[in-house]
């Protein structure tokens, strides 16, 4: 795990775009303990984003991309929607093929990478919206969990179809009035985190992206557990401020309200006892690494 594979060929150095030059110079490739705290001080894997001003998805992207433990060996699989508009500006490979087939593509991809690189951990991460994950793609989402595929599924839950203009989705809350639900949504928000655990996910987290520490922990847990145990699922509330009638600066408050006691997004985590033990060990390892690094600096 190192920066080796992103090194520039000397012959091409002068014609490579500045984004790449910066990536080689100051990106956090190869540092397993990279963190959201590197944002602002080192090269990020995301350039500008093409989302609406103040969109919580944009900050979710930054937290996720700064938290994944091995970006140099990580391939994302996306789906049609707001998320797919951001990936052209991300310095990690991403596959966009169709709407809703992301977990099927990821299944094939992960297995091919295992065949081709039997001795390397190639992390596959699905990142898609709630329409793709829970409505059109639910079959493939759940089948990949039943099959115990070794990858992480992240759902950006904005409780509606944002990119097409705010239509009802399965993760929308009951009673919400939107396009295609002109008299309010008639049924409850689908309980996908619970379903995910029942369907075989070994680690499930549901939270907002108001607190970067929590997001980072959930993402790292999900990736580590997917490597060792099987499927994992992280559902992140990233409200569509545009479609719920909020201002650009109100996204954070909306998330804080939603995660307060009694809210729809009080943080929840499900995991097996085995996974709990495993994550404890991972935490201890990380602490030891940090302590050693600190000691090395002061010595």
């Amino acid at each position: 795990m190192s920066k080796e594979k992103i090194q520039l060929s000397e012959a091409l150095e002068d014609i490579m775009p500045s984004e790449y030059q910066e990536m080689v110079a100051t990106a956090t490739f190869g540092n397993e303990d990279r963190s959201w705290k590197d944002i602002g001080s080192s090269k990020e894997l995301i350039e500008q984003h093409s989302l609406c001003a103040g969109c919580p998805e944009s900050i979710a992207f930054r937290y996720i991309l700064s938290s994944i433990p091995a970006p140099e060996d990580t391939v994302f699989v996306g789906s049609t929607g707001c998320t797919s508009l951001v990936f052209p500006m991300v310095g990690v490979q991403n596959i966009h093929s169709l709407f809703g087939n992301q977990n099927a593509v990821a299944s094939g991809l992960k297995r091919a990478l295992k065949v081709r690189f039997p001795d390397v951990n190639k992390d596959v991460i699905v990142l898609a919206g709630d329409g793709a994950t829970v409505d059109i793609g639910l079959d493939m989402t759940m089948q990949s969990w039943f099959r115990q595929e070794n990858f992480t599924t992240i759902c950006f839950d904005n409780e509606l179809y944002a990119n097409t203009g705010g239509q009802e989705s399965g993760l929308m809350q009951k009673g919400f009035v939107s396009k295609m639900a002109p008299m309010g949504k008639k049924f409850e928000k689908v309980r996908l985190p619970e379903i995910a655990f029942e369907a075989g996910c070994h680690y499930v987290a549901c939270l907002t992206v108001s607190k970067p520490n929590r997001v980072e922990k959930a993402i790292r847990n999900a990736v580590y557990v997917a490597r060792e145990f099987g499927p994992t699922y992280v559902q992140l509330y990233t409200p569509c401020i545009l479609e719920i009638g909020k201002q650009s600066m109100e996204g954070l408050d909306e998330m804080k309200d939603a995660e307060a006691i009694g809210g729809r997004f009080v943080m929840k985590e499900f995991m097996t006892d085995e996974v709990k033990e495993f994550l404890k060990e991972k935490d201890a390892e990380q602490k030891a690494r940090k302590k050693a690094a600190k000691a090395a600096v002061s010595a």
Partner: protein
Amino acid sequence: MNKKVEPKSNKILVSESVNLGEEGLKGQKVTDPNVMMFESEREPNFLTGSEVIKAAIKRANLDVMIAYPITPQSEAAALIGELFAEGYVREYFRGESEFAVMSQCAGAAFGGARVFTTTAGPGTLRAMENFPMWAGSRLPIQVCVTCRGINSPLSIQPDTLEMAYLLETGMLVWHAETAQDLYDWILGGFMVSEQPDVHLPLALCCDGFFVTHTKDTVMLQGEEMCLPRYDPYRSPVPCMDMECPPIRMMRDPFIMKSNYISYMTHASWQQEIHAAVERSRKHTLPIMNGSLIDTENVDREILIVASGTAVSQGREAIRLLEEEGIKVGLVKIKSIRPFPTEEVREATANAKTIFVPEFNIRGWLAREIKAILPNNERVIAGPHVAGGMTMPSEVIVEEIKKGLGIKSATMDRRG
């Protein structure tokens, strides 16, 4: 476009980074496909079409096969599972639907694997959204389509209507007549699909049941040989394995831009796909005996032009007609995409009447032929059988006699 290509070397081009002679799976020897396909000794085997698919895949050095049951391809898909259990295929599993399977195939191909799958009829249509995506993403996946009926009321019987839906997906589309075609073209198909200047998916079609479930004598090479492994770094687009990380591609994806540049980008990408289909011709010639069509006696005034098992039935009809003194020639179309436009024009230049028998109700092949021939009133679309009906040679004989204004005895005898 649609230009005939003369064979230059009649050789299959092989990646220089492939180590011929190295060990493949189960101790097989990676062999130059030219040696394997054209020079090595072959033994006759009496096999069903499904067993022939297994025999070809056994020698294909395959990375990934994803299976799903649907008649009449289920047996072939399961037999490849046996190969996986034996160690001749690196990864294999059952998907949850054809749409999912084709997406899983895409994922595996994006990850740099040689991928094979099989489907049929309603499965082909359920999977359909994936096929233009495969072509647009330049994934050299091979899908063997064992054609069957697609429309309600439900039919599981042979019918080639589904091929009409594949024609404008940007895939290569070949139509095997016999089990031997199927065998040779599965192996050769990987070699054509994976060429850097082609790098497109192949729909290798055959007529369900007639080819898959009947036994035929097929000449096979020894099992100790296999094709060179797929080299994903010959792909014209990046392999999604993070061995070469990307940089920011653009400010906004093109889909967000309503301007000429974005339209032009999409249009030129599509043009390139269809140009790549055209470029496959030169690579296909060695696989198909030097031409995308086969001809017999095309100096005759009456011709049958057909593809798939309609060719076999046409050949028998020609024998029956010959007994009555009616001389008919034959054109067998092997590749539907790219379409052998010039070849068919040349072969039919002297024909006064051209019959196109087909195993589907609409006659898509006749439409293709009418679209490229001068004086296309010469083309008589038919006979057509559908829904699983067989096409006895006598039916073709009747159609030809009717077309020529000769009274047909066999028609009179029917109730």
